[in-house]
């Protein structure tokens, strides 16, 4: 009995200290804080500092991707819909296009607006994209052009979650169950 009370006490104490338990992949201390120099969907130069103060979900993709990218964005949308409104408003999704040749700010804006106001499109030149993808140890690449000028873009399919101070917290993958994603988004909003 005494041991039981002790366990409860210790876990309460740990929770009070901000030791969260995550259900998706814990990134705390494994990835650097949010930092980038990119161009937003209105054509303005932006840095990560401008996005602090809200929890951030960072995702790499490209708009000429009608299958994987919308599936991930739709999942994030469905997950945030399950949070209460104030929590939902505390989350922004940064969709970073690694295909700046086709994704000018206008098409990026049209794409992210189709998913909801919390989705923000960003892109940049090769140097800026390389710096950011290297920072989070992800890769991207271009396939060969076909006769119609179409080409494939390979990209990381995971979502990096940062708290409102820009600290890396979890990696959300397509294979993670919806309940786990919702629980972690809730923890993320309550964090810091």
């Amino acid at each position, binding site marked *: 009995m005494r041991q039981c009370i002790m366990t409860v006490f210790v876990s309460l104490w740990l929770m009070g200290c901000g030791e969260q338990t995550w259900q998706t992949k814990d990134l705390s201390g494994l990835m650097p804080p949010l930092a980038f120099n990119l161009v937003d969907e209105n054509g303005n130069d932006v840095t990560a500092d401008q996005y602090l103060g809200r929890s951030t979900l960072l995702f790499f993709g490209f*708009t*000429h*991707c*009608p*299958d*994987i990218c*919308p*599936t991930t*964005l*739709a999942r994030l*949308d*469905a997950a945030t819909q399950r949070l209460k409104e104030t929590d939902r408003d505390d989350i922004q999704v940064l969709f970073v296009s690694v295909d700046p040749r086709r994704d000018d700010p206008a*098409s990026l804006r*049209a*794409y992210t*607006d*189709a*998913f909801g106001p919390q989705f923000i499109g960003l892109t940049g030149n090769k140097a800026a994209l390389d710096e950011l993808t290297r920072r989070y140890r*992800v*890769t991207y690449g271009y*396939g060969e052009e076909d006769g*119609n000028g*179409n080409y*494939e*873009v*390979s*990209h*990381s*399919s*995971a979502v990096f979650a940062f708290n409102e101070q820009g600290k890396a917290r979890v990696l959300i*993958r*397509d294979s993670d169950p919806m309940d786990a994603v919702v629980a972690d988004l809730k923890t993320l909003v309550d964090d810091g």
Partner: protein
Amino acid sequence: MLPTPLANIPRPVRIWCWTFLLILGMPSALFAADLQISDARMRLLPGDIPAAGYFTLTNTGETDNTLIGADSASFGNVTIHQSVSKNGVSSMQHVDQLTVAAGEQVEFAPGGYHLMLMKRKHPIAVGDEIEVTLLLGNGQRQNVKFRAGAPTTQ
């Protein structure tokens, strides 16, 4: 004489009738519509961004059948694609043809097989029914109506 329905009809006409019935019955016997398509839906994205087509393909026949392509009057270019994920990296690959074995079912669904519908020829709204023709290995062409849905269509 046997009491067949055509017994009272003159012989040349009777032969012609049987031949006609035989020809009529042949296409369904030789080129049966064994590939059945259900739940055809389209994920529509804004502007000039390609749409994705999803459906369930069921081979109800006794022989294997192959999907070799698709086209649509509403799009300049339609191809079969497959999304693949390897070591956390996603990409799409062209699929030249896809064989559905007798009695098997193949799902065209988010994150896997999909039709890549490019170069929209006219505006399409959510709720519209868009005709797409699936080209099969046995030379058959199958018209399917895809219902256009929001970008979050699963």
